[in-house]
């Protein structure tokens, strides 16, 4: 059940067998660990540098990739301005697309 692309090929079955092997190795390593975890004790609390966390603290979705979004901010701001939500802009960009496609067909 593999599919070829001319040079490479992709076979999910082979991949699944390999993935199972890797998982088995991981599981074997995990079994070597010490079992000191106890349910219902302080160990269940999230650990953050030993600080006491306020009730309901957690990592929200907006916190993920904060640095990434911050680094790309100039680009993302520009893209956000591009998606202005103004219908006249939508139509203008449609005309741009139309002119580009007509030009490409005429010239190429």
């Amino acid at each position, binding site marked *: 059940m593999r599919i070829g692309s001319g040079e490479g090929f992709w076979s999910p079955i082979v991949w699944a067998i390999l993935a199972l092997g890797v998982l088995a190795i991981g599981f074997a390593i995990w079994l070597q660990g010490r079992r000191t975890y106890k349910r219902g004790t302080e160990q269940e609390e999230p650990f953050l540098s030993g600080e006491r966390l306020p009730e309901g603290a957690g990592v929200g979705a907006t916190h993920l990739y904060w640095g990434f979004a911050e680094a790309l901010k100039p680009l993302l701001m520009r893209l*956000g301005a591009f998606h*202005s*939500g*103004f*219908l*006249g802009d939508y139509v*203008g960009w449609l*005309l741009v697309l139309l002119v580009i496609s007509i030009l490409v067909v005429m010239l190429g």
Partner: protein
Amino acid sequence: MGNMPFVVSMILVGLGFLALIVRRNLIKLAIGISVIEMGVNLFLVSLGYVRGGIAPIYTYAPPGFKEMVFPTPQALTLTAIVIGLATTALMLAFAVVIYRHRGTLDAGKIRELKG
């Protein structure tokens, strides 16, 4: 002068696009789209016109007629007009709903969906 109807219809299409880009009132945007539709309909009708032709109805044709205009573009135009009616009605209905929610018809202010 034979190409005049095509030129006029394309001018209408251009004016409609201009209205869509420049105007901000939702009703006027719907009018702009209608103007483009009318331009396209005019284009279709003038495609089938034959100079001096009569309406393409065989049973009512006068004896000794020379030419008839093409019936197919007229059928296309009728269909396009009906479709245009439906789209215009739907757009105006949404404009009413938007006005009830926001209290404005200014497309520059109706931009909750952006980014």
